[in-house]
């Protein structure tokens, strides 16, 4: 799976970072950085939770 963030929508609420800090990091510049765009399959539940809990619907999972 590949994590896709729409950075035009993302407004750095950092909810995803709360769920999976090993994948999502909001830094001091207030921007979100995706630390691993291809997280291991073991992270799928957390990735799906991040998609559901993003207040801006900015995160999606691509299967490729």
């Amino acid at each position, binding site marked *: 799976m590949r994590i896709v963030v729409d950075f035009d929508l993302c*407004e750095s*609420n950092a*909810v995803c*970072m709360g769920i999976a800090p090993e994948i999502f990091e909001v830094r001091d510049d207030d921007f979100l950085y995706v630390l691993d765009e291809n997280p291991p399959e073991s992270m799928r539940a957390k990735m799906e939770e991040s998609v559901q809990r993003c*207040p801006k619907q900015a995160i999606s999972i691509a299967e490729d």
Partner: protein
Amino acid sequence: MTTTTVIVGASLAGINAARTLRLQGQLGPIVVVDADPERPYDRPPLSKQILTGEWEPEKILLPAGKEDLNLDFRLGTRAKALDLSSRQIILEGPTGAAETSSFDSLVIASGASARRLPDTAGIAGVHVVRTLADSLALRAELDAGPSRVVVIGAGFIGAEVASSCRKRDLDVTLVEALPLPLERVIGAEMGQVCAQVHIENGVDLRLGTGVLQIETSSVDGVERVRAVALSDGTVVEAEVVVVGIGVTVNTQWLEGSGIALDDGVVCDNTLLAAPSIVAAGDIARYPSERFGRVLRVEHWETAIAGGEAAARRLLAEASGETPAVFDPIPWFWSDQYDRKIQLAGRPMPTDECRIVHGTTAEFRFVALYGDGDRLTGVLGMNRPRHVVQLRALFDEGVTFSEACERAAAL
């Protein structure tokens, strides 16, 4: 035997309950009822991107509402009464015709409605912002370029509406009955900071001021707002008035049904209100061990978590599993002008408030709240990373003073 579930409320809590039931394997019918005729949509943009015109309604449709979950949507349909003995709900359909819907299990997620000022029904130019229709009606009036908008109530909705109006370069008067905005939520010190944010953004802020009367004039036979008379004796001329004075829970249909009500639906700590009946979202009142009191939380994230938990509660009941306790850390955000305010936890306004990062002067800081040595809240202004990291401390059980030390090291 297949189970029929009725969910009253197609907003965030209801739709997430439906989604969870389906994904967890419920095969029987899921009927989703909502008085709002619109497909399920997200509310936070109603006071922001929809009002400013940046987004069109299509953009706020909830993803779960667009998924193929085989849900039986009854939109534009109002729940009128619950009959527990026959396990039926009396509904009023879009045409006003009465219908009934039988259920084996029920999710109560009928939410809340915007409070209105008394004696203002039918006055043109007076708005609330709760539904998509509300937001679009207000937007149409803002498009016409009113000379001044008066916003009554400087809570989160009022503050965001004021912000959206300022983004449109409209003159705004923001009226708040309390001495400081949000004082009952975040205390006086932080309320003062929020007041300053409004002032810096050119809002005419009237604190400690009540509304005496909405003054009207008749234009082409239509009674329309002309001005707002305030308790300080001033009269503010306004072509548009927005009322943001909180909500009342939509429990009318449950009165006399046998479901316990107390400014919401009284649930246990698993969101169960009665056998096979759960509640979620703005309407659910549940005991929080974490905060040592009964809570009714109107936050976006709590609605999602509550919908999911309520669905799992029903499934646990059916399977005989031990149900999970519902006690999340409340969290919300509010975007006002170029500031993002986030609060995790549930402080009391009298709790000690300590700035642990940044300064209020630069409107970029983190404050922690404590009751004795118990951490009760994390407030951030334009500090999302810190808020999310410090929110985790609630589950670590650290003391207030430890939390302050940890925060300083972030």
